[in-house]
Every structure is written in C-alpha cells, then in structure tokens.
C-alpha cells in the first residue's frame, strides 16, 4: 500500500467512503468527520487520504496527484477526465433527470425549436439533448437549479433526484431520465500500471466488501 494516495469526496458521498476504508482498516480516518485536516496518513507506509471537493476528485486522479479516488458517476462523466473506473461501490445512488413544470411535461420535446436548460451538469445535459437532435441552450448554474423554471431563467432543468421531494416542492415533475449514478472507484491510468499489484489488491478488497454489503442488503 506504500505511497498510494486516495482522494475522497467531501459532501454526500463522504460517509460511505469513510465507512468503506475504515472497515478495510484505515483508522486514521476516524477523525476525518470532525477534524479540519484534509490529509490523513496511515502509519507505516499505509494509504494516504486526501479530502477534496467532489468535482475535483477526477482532476486529482487524472493528473496522478491521487492514485485513486471515489466519486459519483454523474460527476465523473460530467468531468470527461481520462481515468479508469474499475468498480461501482453500491452506495450514493441517485438519478440525473430532466424535470420541468407540468406544462412542459405534456410537450413533445423533440418538436420544441428552442429549449433553455438550467443545470449543474452542462456537458451531460447538452449531450443528452443534442444526441437526439434537440437543440438546447444550456444555462450552467452552481446551485438552486430547481428555481430556474419558476423565475423564467429556463424551461427545464437537468438535476439529481434522490426522493423527488425537492422537485415537488418547487412545482416540478420528472420528465425523463438522463442517467443513474452511484459512487464509483476511479484509478489513474499510470498508477494502475506502475503499482498494478498493490492497486489490484485494494480493488479486490473493496470489491469483496461491497459485494458482501450488497449481499446483506438483498
């Protein structure tokens, strides 16, 4: 495990990520929730962890600043970074959907000549519509996407839903699904090759753990 750095995402996926690595025997992470430190080093050449903003995890990993990381598949595909993604981790499930006011839900989107879409996922949103020949104007926002239709900023939004409650509270309905996301493990290409044995071992450990957890859930 010597010298391997793992980037963990702050925010929604942090709990699941910490649980995973703590269960695999990384006690240094016990303080991660409360401490303001951003780097945690296991003793005796064990793993090193860094806490990063979710959007930054693919960047750390693509450059090799971290050898591996955990990130939501939505964020990963939006980032278009060149990394390996050997494992889905079985937590952090959510869906990326197109949503809008009920009036929009009744329309055939393919017949709309101009749609404005507010989203935190401009690349995924654009690709979703353009691939089907629907021309859209994407309005990139960094938060509170749900209010965009109500204030006339956009016709539709592309955003994550877990329960659908936020959508309902803002008078929006789901129109179609863009993708299903869950936490996944990503690995730097060069690290995967240069530390093949070590990294394979970590991947296998995580795989057996996540499949055990999945087994219990069923």
């Amino acid at each position, binding site marked *: 495990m010597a010298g391997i750095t793992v980037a963990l995402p702050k925010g929604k996926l942090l709990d699941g990520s910490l649980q995973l690595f703590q269960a695999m025997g990384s006690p240094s992470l016990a303080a991660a929730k409360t401490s303001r430190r951003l780097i945690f080093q296991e003793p005796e050449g064990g793993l090193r962890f860094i806490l990063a903003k979710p959007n930054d995890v693919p960047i750390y990993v*693509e*450059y*090799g*600043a971290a050898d591996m990381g955990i990130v939501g598949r939505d964020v990963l595909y939006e980032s*278009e*970074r*060149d990394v*390996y*993604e*050997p*494992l*889905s981790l079985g937590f952090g499930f959510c869906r990326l959907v197109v949503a809008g006011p009920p009036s929009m839900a009744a329309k055939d989107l393919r017949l709309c000549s101009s749609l404005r879409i507010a989203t935190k996922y401009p690349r995924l949103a654009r690709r979703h519509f353009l691939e089907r020949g629907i021309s859209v104007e994407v309005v990139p926002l960094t938060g509170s996407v749900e209010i965009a239709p109500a204030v006339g900023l956009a016709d539709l939004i592309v955003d994550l839903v877990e329960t659908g409650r936020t959508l309902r509270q803002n008078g929006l309905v789901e129109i179609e699904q863009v993708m299903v996301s869950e936490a996944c493990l990503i*690995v*730097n*290409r*060069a*690290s*995967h*090759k*240069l530390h*093949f044995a070590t990294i*394979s071992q970590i991947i296998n450990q995580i795989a057996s753990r996540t499949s055990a957890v999945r087994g219990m859930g069923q």
Partner: protein
Amino acid sequence: MTLRFSSNEGTLRVGHSKMKRQLAALPLGVRDILFAEAARRTDLQTGLRRLFEGWGYSEIVTPTFEYAQTMEIGAGPALLQEMYRFLDREGQLLALRSDITTSVARIVGTKLLDQPKPLRFYYIANVFRHEEPQAGRQREFYQAGVELIGSERPEADAEVVALTVRSLQVAGLNNFQLNLGHIGFFKGLTEDLALSPSEVGLVRAAIDRKDAGALRSLLLSLGIGERERRVLTELPCLCGRREIIEKAHSLAINPRSEQAIKNLAEIYEYLDDHGLVEHIIIDLGEVRGMEYYTGMMFEGFVQGLGFSVCSGGRYDDLIGRFGQHAPAVGFALGLERVLLALDKQNEKPPTAQVASEVLLSNHAGQRGLALAETLRGKGYRVEVEVLGRAKDELLTYAGQKGIKYVVQAGEVLKIWTSGRCISRDWMEVGEVEQWQA
C-alpha cells in the same frame, strides 16, 4: 478633424493599451519556450537524433499541413474531431498534421514502393490536436519517433520496443516501464461473436475504462456465451510479467487470438535477447491506441507522472491504403511529457549551457572582432556588445547573465573576471587559453 482627435484622446489611449494586452494573449494550448527550457529540449532532440541514427534510421521531414482527406486516413473518431482543418484559396480542405505516422505512410505508399526494404525513418516534429489542454495534453506538441517499414517479423517489433527503451534512457529517465499488449488478441476474441462494429465499440470502451461491472452486464445483454464472457471480463487483469503470456495462451479461443499471443511471446523472447525485459510489462487489458494498430502495441509510463510518455505499435494495413501493402511498426514519444517526467524524477536535465562565457566590449574594432572569431573557433561562446554600455554596466550585465569574462580589446587587452582585472599587452592568439590560469 483636429478637434475630434483631441476630444477622443483619452479613448484612444485606452484603446491602445487594450490592443497591447491583446497582443500579449496566447491561444489555449500553445506555449513559448525560452532560455534554458529551449536548450534542454534541443539537447534532448540532439540525443535522440544521435540514437536513432546510430540504429540506422534516417530523418524524414513531412509537411506541416496536408489535404485533410489524407490526414483522416486511419484516424479514429477522437483524432478526427481534434484535427485543425482550414480551406486554401482554391477551397480545398487542408489539415495541420495531427499524426506523423499517417504522413509517413502516405510517402512510403506512394513514392517509396521500389526502395530496398526495410526502410527506417525517424522524425522530430510538432503536431497539432484540438484537445482540452490538461494532464499533459497541449494543442501543439512535439513528437520524436521512428517507423520501421517492410518487416512483419517479431524482430522488427522488438527493435522498435528496444529503441523506445533506449530513447527513454538517453533522455535520462530511469524507473519507467513499457506496457506491451496486442490488439490482435482483443480482435480475435470479438471476431466470432457476431457483434456489430458499434457493439464491439461498447465492449472496447468498457474494457478501456476497466469498468468490470459495466462490462459484465454489457456482455450479458449482448448474449455472449459463457466462455467468451469469462475471457473478456478477465482481460483487464491480464497484466504482469512473462507468466501472463502463458495465461493468455490458455484463454485464447480461436486461431486469431492464439496467433496474437504466439506473436507476443516471440516479441518477448527477442526483447529478452535485447536484455530489456526488466522494463516490459505484458498488458493485454489495454485496447486503446491509434485506430490503425493491427498487432503489438505499447505505452510507456514513468514513476511519478500520471500519464504516458510514449506509445507505439504495429500498423500493417495503413500504408496499403495509400498504395502497395507494406507491414510497419513504430513509436513516438512526447518531448514535453519526457521533460516533465525528468522534472518529476528530479533528474538533472541534460546540462543546458546557454549563457555566453565571454562578453567583448564595444569599440572592439577589427582586432577585437578577430579575437571574437578566434575564441569562437576555440569553442568559447562569445557575445559582442551592441548597446554601447560603459564598463560598469557591462560588468553588472555579465553578473546577471553569468558571463565569466568581460573583455575590452583596446590598445591594451583588459579582461575582467570575478571582479579582478587582468591587463596585459595584446596577446598572441595562442595565449587565450591561459586566461583560465
């Protein structure tokens, strides 16, 4: 007229500074290379040139732009999107070179058919790709590489791999490895599966991402039989030393995949003869690479750098698309990435001697200029003052630039070095070296 000008003066000045700022701007993905950095690159290029020539390769210089149609031959979807295309005045679509191998293939396929084989070419040139500048990618970057044309034997593959290893060593890198795979193995595994090209593309993409879960469910949904499914899902794990070749051999399911492994085994034996297997990792889980690769292919990685520094492979069908069929194999390394890897390894880059050693003051006259020529002939780097500065300013400048000697070639020759001044009668040319003493 005059009035309008004077009333606009303020605006004009603003406009001027804005224009200057625009002149300072650079397009994304290109860079200026200055001083020591430029010298370092040149030294690297010189070392590689000498190496390639020592192996019997001769230089080939291809055009910076060609007909887009030519550049597009053999390019995969990503490269097609990344080409810089433009129209000439006749309305013909041109493209900046995005890959040198394609141009070499054109030249060989159309002009060099009757030359005695094998042909060995090397190039060091800039190429252009419209990529997002990130993680080692730029829009203009330099490649040094070789092409060995006319042999389909494993000796040729091994020679190119060996030359890649030597290139990285000449560059000053240690702690690197080449991951050697064979696209024929994947093509063999998928050829009998009755999949459409786009379905094969999906399988390839999942293997490329090493996404085992997606690969498993994709193969299930495509209705792939159990044996083929097991082999394909095992691909990403086929990475290691010699034993991987045997393991892969037991997984081969048809003549084509078996042939690929046999070929890889032969190449590996020749690499053993070259004494280089310590740098080689067999890696059958890698299915990316240039679209035109047909056989063995490889990528080079250096400890501490998150992306590859070189890649290469066999391309037996590319030249045939321009003319007569000729098997070929080659590699290219990215000069910028190699330099970056050297930085990461804290290796001293090949020494960059850029500063002059001698500064000859102005008013040098015929005698002084002759002295400059003599010193240059003896290998000193001499600059002659062109700003008309006085002695003190010259000494300051020499200090800043690390120039060792400041020389005033008047009636008496004055040489300042480390603060001291040596004055002497005009010396004979042969005495020049005695400065050191």
